[in-house]
């Protein structure tokens, strides 16, 4: 069974803080993704990575950065958290083929 874990289920941070969200997968997947889910907006892709030290911008990268130093770990960084970054953050991983992505349980981030 593929397992994707995220460092926190719930997180509360203050405006302006630097926030790190960690994601680890145990199935040797090349591809990893970060999404945010907001009511009425579905899943929106923030960043993705097809290999170690490689990253590509998704649809909404502004205000975020990522790091992938090891194959199994993909980190999302909020350089200076803002209230509009309050959201559910979901990490996923996959092989290049087949295309199914496997998701972690999510981190509910609240920025006050």
């Amino acid at each position: 069974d593929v397992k994707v874990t995220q460092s926190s289920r719930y997180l509360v941070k203050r405006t302006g803080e630097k926030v790190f969200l960690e994601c680890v997968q145990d199935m040797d997947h090349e591809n990893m993704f970060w999404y945010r889910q907001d009511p009425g907006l579905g899943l929106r892709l923030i960043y993705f990575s097809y290999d170690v030290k490689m990253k590509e911008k998704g649809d909404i990268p502004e205000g975020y950065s990522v790091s992938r130093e090891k194959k199994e770990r993909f980190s999302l960084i909020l350089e200076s958290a803002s209230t509009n970054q309050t959201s559910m953050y979901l990490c996923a991983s996959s092989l290049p083929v087949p295309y199914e992505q496997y998701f972690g349980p999510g981190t509910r981030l609240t920025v006050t």
Partner: protein
Amino acid sequence: DQQVKQNSPSLSVQEGRISILNCDYTNSMFDYFLWYKKYPAEGPTFLISISSIKDKNEDGRFTVFLNKSAKHLSLHIVPSQPGDSAVYFCAARGGPGANSKLTFGKGITLSVRP
């Protein structure tokens, strides 16, 4: 520009009846389609998929139909069960070169009434 559209935000169905969840897309380069199911406070889980070279794929109570000419797919759940109550996301892969990057719709909330 929304390339994957789930125009109905919610659907309510009686237990035992059929649930039909619809999805439309605009990008003709999409070559693979997936459905995910999501419970509150959990990550989405993969349900079923279909390649663009097929028009139907079935897995137990779940069947996905693809109509390429209409750029439309649907997920049928028969019979519907209360445990099927969740948010369902339609997703599409962007064609050759897209690797496993997916575009998701906004989701449909399915409620199955006992």
